[in-house]
């Protein structure tokens, strides 16, 4: 589980960075490259999950903390914006206030959980976060007057992001098209998502390259020694837990603005947590680049693998049990198996494996 402590001219390192650069470029020009609605939806989801996974990697890969509450913080951010947009009507005020509210709640809860349980065994922490996340999930579906319950909340977003908004007009007063893409509010919304996520990701990159990142790795590698040198392990852990929670919360807020809908399935469910785990492991724990690769692969798989599985299920309909296992709903089954195999054979994930292999 060694992080890539690499030299600048490392070949594997360059390959990974080149892949990430290609993904980033594809995301930057996504509305122009892929002009159907679904592809832009996929691109926005990738952006959000890159931040979510990178912030989770800060916990699991860099500091060695296993938390199952990451979607909880994501949900706090999403519900903060959703509830305020619903109550106060569309506008920038509710978006900013909701984001701040989500971040505040996240930091308070993260501090409480951190101080309470980060001093005990890592395994306790994993269990406690799991319990906390499930309680929040149940609360969200029970307090239906406030959160919309299972149905979630739909709301309107600031006018700038409405599909009917014209960013640029041609001589006739119609929406200007550049390379066939309408310059409307949907485009503005996508670039809002992209830029926010880009900035958050750069911030996370900066964090892991800073002295703080080095201390976190020291804690992961040898807690006792880090404590011995004089770093207050519990304080560092709690801080990094709060930081990751804040990042997840902001990502949640952005996602809420993009989707115009927030419900347990999109913001809080345990399935999202499993997605994040899979992405971190597929991409590679302990590298921020891995987060980009993992998130991209998983989201693409989520959207396009199911179509493939439907075909496979049709094709094998004569064989017992196999079509059941190949049904599109069972795709988590295969991902689970891939996940286990990856943890066994490639614990460093895709990015980590490429970086290591090519460095010799």
């Amino acid at each position: 589980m060694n992080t890539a402590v690499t030299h600048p001219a490392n070949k594997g390192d360059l390959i990974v960075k080149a892949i990430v650069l290609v993904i980033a470029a594809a995301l930057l020009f996504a509305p122009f490259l892929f002009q159907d609605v679904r592809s832009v939806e996929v691109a926005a989801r990738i952006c959000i999950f890159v931040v979510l996974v990178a912030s989770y990697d800060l916990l699991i890969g860099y500091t060695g903390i296993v938390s199952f509450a990451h979607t909880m913080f994501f949900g706090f951010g999403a519900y903060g914006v959703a509830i305020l947009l619903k109550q106060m009507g569309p506008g920038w005020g509710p978006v900013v206030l909701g984001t701040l509210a989500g971040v505040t709640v996240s930091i308070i809860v993260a501090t409480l959980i951190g101080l309470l349980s980060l001093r005990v065994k890592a395994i306790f922490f994993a269990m406690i976060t799991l319990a906390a996340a499930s309680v929040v999930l149940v609360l969200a579906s029970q307090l239906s007057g406030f959160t919309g319950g299972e149905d979630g909340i739909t709301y309107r977003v600031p006018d700038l992001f409405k599909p009917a908004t014209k960013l640029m007009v041609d001589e006739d007063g119609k929406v200007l098209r550049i390379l066939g893409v309408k310059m409307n509010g949907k485009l503005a919304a996508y670039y809002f998502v992209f830029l926010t996520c880009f900035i958050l990701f750069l911030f996370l990159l900066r964090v892991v390259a800073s002295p703080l990142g080095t201390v976190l790795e020291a804690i992961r590698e040898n807690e006792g020694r880090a404590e011995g040198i004089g770093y207050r392990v519990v304080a560092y852990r709690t801080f990094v837990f709060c930081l990751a929670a804040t990042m997840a919360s902001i990502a949640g807020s952005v996602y809420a603005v993009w989707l115009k809908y927030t419900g347990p399935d999109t913001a809080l469910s345990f399935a999202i947590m499993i997605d994040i785990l899979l992405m971190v492991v597929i991409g590679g724990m302990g590298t921020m680049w891995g987060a980009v690769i993992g998130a991209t692969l998983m989201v693409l798989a989520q959207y396009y693998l199911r179509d493939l599985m439907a075909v496979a299920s049709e094709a094998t309909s004569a064989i017992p049990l196999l079509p059941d296992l190949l049904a599109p709903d069972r795709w988590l089954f295969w991902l689970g198996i891939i996940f286990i195999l990856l943890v066994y054979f490639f614990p460093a994930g895709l990015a980590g494996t490429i970086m290591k292999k090519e460095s010799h």
Partner: protein
Amino acid sequence: MTNISDLVTRAGGVFLLPVAVAIVAFFLIGVPSSWLTLTIAGLAMGMMIFLMASGLSLVFGLMDVLNFGHSAFVSFGAFVAASVLAWLSGWLGSPSVILNSLALILAIAAAVVFGLGAGWFFERVIVKPVYHDHLRQILITMGALIVAEQMILAIWGGAPVSVPRPHFLEGSIIIGDASVEIYRIFAFCLGAAVYVALHVLLNRTRIGLLIRAGVENREMVEALGFRIDRLFIGVFMLGSGLAAMGGAMWAGYETLITPALGAEMMIIVFIVVIIGGLGSIQGTLLGAIMVGLFANYVGFLAPKMALASNMILMMVILLWRPSGLAPAVK
């Protein structure tokens, strides 16, 4: 002050907590018959949770392995038992108590045997390669849980499955004003019997001696020439079998089960082992009974709080004793 705390320690220390909770609840509820019904319901629930949690706690104590996939055994146990009961529904419907109990015994036995087999497979294939690596353990067992849940969905489908109960366990008996479901008494008795059996196994047999020695100091036991990894497979299988038994009992208790059962129980099981302290059977029993009683009392007194009650209980106990009420000596 010291006299009082001495007295409390001598009388049972933390093991008096459930009694204290019950007494407090008695005054808060105020109606003896409701209190009795709730207490028995709480004890029965606690015993079923104890069955599910004991294996997890033992495995952790002996081998420092935390199995996040433990709840898969619970769900498999529940569904296997449900299938067997449905298959033997002819026996269940007949008025003969012998056929009834035979069907029940067969169902529970099938669940336990399945649990033992699945436990063996799980230990060899999933857990063994990642001993001593907590991070990968958590990840791999979590992955196994996903796969197991999907298998249940593929085999039994997503719709709720109804579980027929044996005829003689239906209905309730009246004690004073309180009505007590017979199934709850049965669950309590079975749980208590398993606890006693485990207690005897751990404290009165040579294998139990080795297990306890292994919990306390694994290297030393190995150095003395005992194959502790074989012992560990045994304990793992036993734990899985018990979890499946707990699942089977829970299926009969709920009478309508969904594939989400495992995930729901996992949270409670985790809370129980955290409260009780990992690695000890007594602690797990204590935690399970506390959770069972607390959930029932709070559900009656303040239904809105019922969801968060276990969480609050856990937080309070962790603040008081960070490693649980009665952890194994480590």
